[in-house]
Each structure stands twice: as structure tokens, then as C-alpha cells.
């Protein structure tokens, strides 16, 4: 021994394997290159390569599926065995997490209008029993709490009455109603007077034996 450290058997073995693998790769590469020169070998090599690619892909998929199934099973078993809530409660400082949440930003990102647009108000109203609600309202109690006198005291009744009277064209109403009344009355009197005239004239005409009605002449 010349003072050098004894070689690590593991690293030595790895080195031997790598060297052997590199030599084997080179030998196979040389073999393939040489065989490719021979006629009829190249198509065979291409077919073999495709087959190899296909096999590797299938092996990959199989490994994926196997891994997924195993992982799923493991997580399932782990969830059954572990109480996540207890772990989070015991080991996670929720206050710190909550402090890190920007509530305002979340609110800003929520489109309340869109949510409101999706709410079916008529359907909600259909489900509300207004009668039942109304039956539970004590109107008398509400009325008792309203101070009508103070409300009236705050209303300027004179101004209100003036406004109402200004809005009503009283002279026109009186004029129209009395006009129609007097018209009807006057027409009635005149018509009856004419009929009485004719009656008297007819009576006098008979009395004097006149053949024709007065006024026809």
C-alpha cells in the first residue's frame, strides 16, 4: 500500500459496471452500424426499433396505471388511518393563515351582479307565504306606536287645503252642473208649456167647432 486509501468496493463496482456498459453500448453501436451496411438488414432494424418504441410506451402506460392504483390505495388507507382535522388543528396556526387572507380582494373579485342575476326572485316569492306573514303582524300595535297628532301637527293643513282647492276648478264644476240642470229644467218647462198650449187650443177649437188646429193657418 502506498498510503492511498483503500478503494471503496461500491464505487469500484459502479465504475466497472459503467465501463462495461459503455463498452457494450459501443460494441452494439458498432455492430448495428456494420449490419446496416449489409443489404436487407436496415428495414429489419427499423421494424425492430418501432417495436421497441411501442413496447417501451406500453410499459410506460402500465407503470403509470400501476402507480396510480397503488397511490390511490395508499392515500385511501392513509386517510382512514389519519385524522386530518386533528392534525390541522394541532399543528396549523389557523390565525396566521387567516391573517394572510386578503378578504377585501376576494370581495372585489366576487361579481355580486352576476349572482343576483342568477337568483330567481319570483320563485322565492312563490315560496313565501305572505298571508302567514301578514297574519303575524299586529297592526294595532303598530298603529298604537304612531303618534297621529304629531304627524298632523307637522302637516300644514292650510297650505295643503289651498293646494287642493287650487287644483280643483270649482267654478267650472258648478257652472257645468248648474248649466246642465237649468238646461234640463228649462227644456222641460218649455215643452210642457207647448203641450199645454196645444191642449188648450184643441179644447177651444172643439168648443168653437173649428176643423183645423190653431197655428196651421
Amino acid at each position, binding site marked *: 500500500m502506498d498510503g492511498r486509501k483503500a478503494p471503496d468496493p461500491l464505487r469500484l463496482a459502479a465504475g466497472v459496471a459503467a465501463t462495461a456498459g459503455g463498452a457494450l453500448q459501443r460494441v452494439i453501436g458498432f455492430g448495428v452500424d456494420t449490419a446496416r451496411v449489409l443489404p436487407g438488414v436496415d428495414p429489419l432494424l427499423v421494424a425492430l426499433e418501432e417495436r421497441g418504441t411501442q413496447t417501451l410506451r406500453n410499459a410506460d402506460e402500465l407503470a403509470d396505471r400501476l402507480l396510480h392504483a397503488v397511490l390511490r390505495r395508499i392515500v385511501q388507507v392513509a386517510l382512514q388511518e389519519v385524522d386530518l382535522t386533528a392534525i390541522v388543528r394541532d399543528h396549523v396556526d389557523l390565525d396566521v393563515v387567516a391573517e394572510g387572507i386578503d378578504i377585501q380582494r376576494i370581495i372585489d373579485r366576487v361579481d355580486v351582479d352576476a349572482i343576483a342575476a342568477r337568483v330567481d326572485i319570483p320563485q322565492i316569492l312563490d315560496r313565501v307565504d305572505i298571508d302567514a306573514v301578514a297574519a303575524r303582524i299586529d297592526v294595532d300595535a303598530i298603529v298604537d306606536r304612531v303618534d297621529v297628532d304629531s304627524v298632523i301637527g307637522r302637516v300644514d293643513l292650510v297650505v295643503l287645503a289651498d293646494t287642493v282647492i287650487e287644483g280643483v276648478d270649482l267654478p267650472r264644476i258648478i257652472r257645468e252642473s248648474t248649466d246642465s240642470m237649468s238646461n234640463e229644467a228649462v227644456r222641460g*218647462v*218649455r215643452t210642457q208649456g*207647448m203641450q199645454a*198650449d196645444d191642449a188648450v187650443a184643441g179644447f177651444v177649437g172643439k168648443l168653437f167647432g173649428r176643423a183645423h188646429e190653431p197655428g196651421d193657418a
Partner: protein
Amino acid sequence: MSAPAHRSAGIVTRGLACGIDLGVVLAVMGGIYVGALFLRLLFSPQEFSFPDANAVLSATLFVGVAVLYLTACWSVSGRTVGAVTMGLRVVSRNGELIGWLRAFVRAVLCVMFGFGLLWAAVDGRRRSLQDILLRTAVVYDWEPDLHPGEPEI
């Protein structure tokens, strides 16, 4: 109901119109009387007393007011208050308004000889004595304005 044709009015409507006009004249007289009372009270309040009714004065006042009233109404529109109420109009034979003079004479005759109206009841053409004398007629006319036309007398 439409207005009737301008035919001669009979005794009933004309009598009622006369009654209404009589009321109007009496109301005017009452107004004059009350006005005179207030005047006397205004100028001599100390020795005020209700005046005794003077028959001659009252009759004269009545005739004066009535003649004035009838003359004015007949010559201006042919209609007194009573005539307006009953839908009558005093016109000449050709349907025109009568003039001031004829209205005045007719008013005097009607006031002094009111019984002349009774002849309208028996006359074949419904004329009163005043109508016959002055060649006037009283027709049905419900329109406010005069529409000249030959009355069917």
C-alpha cells in the same frame, strides 16, 4: 230635444211668461222701494219712519217700470225674462224684431189692458188683442239669437 219651429205660442206659455215678468217688475219695484228707504235713512236718519204705501204712487211706479222693462226687452231682443224662460219671442209679422215705438206702444197696451192676452186663447191664430192691433206675433223660439224667418202665424 230639438228646438221647435217658430210657430205661434199659446195662452199657457204666454200667461206663464207674463206671470214671470210680473214677478220681475214687482222685484224691481221692491228694489226701488228698499233703495228709497236706504236713501231716506242715509240723508235723514233722525226723523226716519217707514213710509205709508201710496196706492197711486205705487201704481204709477208699477206701470212705469213695467212699460220701461217690456219696451227695452222687446225692442232689444224680443224676449223678456219670462219669454226666455218659456222659450218665446215677440216678433213682427215678417219675423223681425219690433222697433222701439211699436215695442213701447205694445208695452203700454199690455200693461193697461192685460186682459187682451186672453184673446189668444180663443183666436184661431193665437193672437192677443195687442198682436192684432200692432201686427205682432209671439212665437216659440228657444235659440238665444234671433233667426229671422217667416213665422207660421
